[in-house]
């Protein structure tokens, strides 16, 4: 049973999206400038996983948009 998203949940989701976004860029830096093939390959895979995480978090917000109240609740 899906419930309306709380303010706290939204804050954690937003913070998590910032984290995933930063990790994507950091992985891209290793892929672009790294010299160890194993690390570059791994960072390339991790980059995709962080993108998926970001999308999952984004999807959670969009999933809760419709049931969110438009007036402040007590």
């Amino acid at each position, binding site marked *: *049973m*899906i*419930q*309306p*998203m*709380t303010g*706290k*949940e939204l804050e*954690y*989701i937003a*913070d*998590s999206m910032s*984290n*995933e976004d*930063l*990790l994507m860029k*950091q*992985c891209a*830096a*290793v892929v*672009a*400038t*790294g*010299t*160890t093939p*194993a*690390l570059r390959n*791994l*960072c390339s895979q*991790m980059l995709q*996983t962080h993108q*998926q*995480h970001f999308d*999952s*978090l984004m*999807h*959670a917000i969009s*999933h*809760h948009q419709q049931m969110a109240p438009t007036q402040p609740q007590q």
Partner: protein
Amino acid sequence: MYQQQQQKQSILTEEDLVSTILSDLKRVVREYATAATESTCPDIRQLFTKLMDSTLTMQGQLFQAMQQANMYNTSSPVLRQELDKQMKQYQQIKQKTAQFLQQTLGQQQNQTMYTPNMQQQSGQQQGSQNYYN
């Protein structure tokens, strides 16, 4: 100096970059755990739990890759005496707690926790949709 146009240069070394990623992954695992424990909606809790697990897996893979590339020094092995000491100490603690439980719960002990009923209930919480994919 600019002989290699294709290979971009970074201000930080590769080791610095991956070390930063490793510590960020460790931090993000903790943040997902906190977020899961403070979630109200079961679906959001499940999302955070899955993201935590996935991040923990990546952290383990990166750690192993760094160790193979000699970029990570693990702490030195603990001495046998230290293991023996802790083992002895916690065997005593375990025994004392067993006595405490016996005195406190007595005959009730079998009826308090872990009844088959409750195990069935906890199994029902799963299901519904999940976001992670």
